[in-house]
């Protein structure tokens, strides 16, 4: 059977989540591997969410926020960028494949970009195979 990665998406309410909605309403096709969680702002994302997602079996984590400068709250994503940059460095230095974690700025009007990013990221994660390093092994 083909490997179908589990991907966690964490998207900001105002841009990326709305962009995902747009992708849906315009009936754009993108892989179903993404499970989305909506947060009010990308700066709401605690890096521990990302570590925990990988532990609980995510093969990839995709984070979406407003374009820098366009944050609904003014500067939230500017902070988020720094935090997520460090998160990426931590995962990398711990030895996780860097390709499993991605941050993208997708605005509410970029439905096709959302579909593109998800398609591309899913393919990339698929290429990396199952994530086994952080995943907690348990029965069942």
């Amino acid at each position, binding site marked *: 059977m083909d490997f179908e990665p589990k991907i966690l998406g964490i998207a900001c309410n105002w841009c990326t989540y709305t962009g995902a909605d747009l992708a849906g309403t315009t009936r754009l096709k993108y892989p179903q591997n993404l499970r989305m969680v909506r947060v009010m702002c990308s700066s709401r994302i605690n890096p521990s969410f990302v570590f925990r997602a990988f532990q*609980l079996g995510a093969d990839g984590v995709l984070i979406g926020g407003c374009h820098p400068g366009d944050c609904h709250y003014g500067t939230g994503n500017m902070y988020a960028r720094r935090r997520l940059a460090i998160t990426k460095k931590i995962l990398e230095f711990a030895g996780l494949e860097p390709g499993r974690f991605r941050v993208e700025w997708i605005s509410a009007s970029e439905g096709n970009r959302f579909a593109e990013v998800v398609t591309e990221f899913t393919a990339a994660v698929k290429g990396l195979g199952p994530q086994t390093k952080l995943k*907690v092994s*348990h*029965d*069942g």
Partner: protein
Amino acid sequence: MLKKIEQGKLSELVTALIDQGPLYAPVRDDRGVNFQSIRSPLAVTLDFYNSVLSPKAVFFPQSEDLISYRLGRGEPTAKTTPLPTAQTILLGVRPPDAYSFFLMDELFLGSGIVDPYWQSRRDLTVVIGYPFINQTPDAVDFYSSLGISATDTRGSDIFLIKKNGELLFKGLTEKGNALLAKQAALFTEATGDDEQYYLAALAQGAAIVTRNLDCDPKRTASKLENLFADTAFWEQMAAACISCGTCTFVCPTCHCFDIADENIFRDGARRRFWDACMFTDFTLEASGHNPRSRVYQRLRQKVCHKYSYYIRNFGVISCVGCGRCTRSCPVNIDIFTIIAEAMKK
């Protein structure tokens, strides 16, 4: 029963013991020596002073599942983890540590309800003691202050002593002799000369003196009881304490634990695992009240539990003077010094 084997044949013996059941023995890595479950006979070392962590984990693992369960829409299904049944051998235990098992028996077996985990592991395990012989005691050890000799047989089933290129094994208990008998093929019978050597070695080891402190159990207990309310004294003793759990985790007689249910999705286990009275949230109650919110109160609890409460309950000091807490303390707090200061008061 005294048996012997050439030192070169140790790995053969270890292999035979592994076949009999889990074997725990000292293993050296770049951070020092610790007791580990042995898979390769070459890993075992007998060339060490003492392990960084005490061997108590063999009887009282840092974490163990009591019950595993699966949660679902209906009633959860639960399975009790069976008690251990495999015969276990613990090789290379220093006399103070072997004696610590005796001290822990008081609590786990001798006070009210018997702890089934401790009991089954104690019953199943043969302890091969490894007395200190020809060894200068470490500067922080103080086991002789507590009436434990470097060749104390209490707690050991077999004694292991090195004799120029040979290893002497002396069976001390029925359990120990049975083990030696079972491996008889590997051993040669000891000669009268070996008997002499063994006795001489014991006598030589028994003469080892560590740093010394007069701490008669009854007197120490009442001393600390009177000192309990002396906040200034305890604040001074705990001035440097950072309230981590290092001392309690390396200690052979610390036995506090926590029980918690931990789940991953629908699967989980009720676990018991080491906890430490030095942690801030150890006594934090649901109401938010914490009777030991200050560092000095927690250090006082640790010291008094060992040198006062345990004496009142069981008549013995719950410390073997192995020096581990002092060696591992990030800020070099020394329980010997604390007791010495307390006795001066």
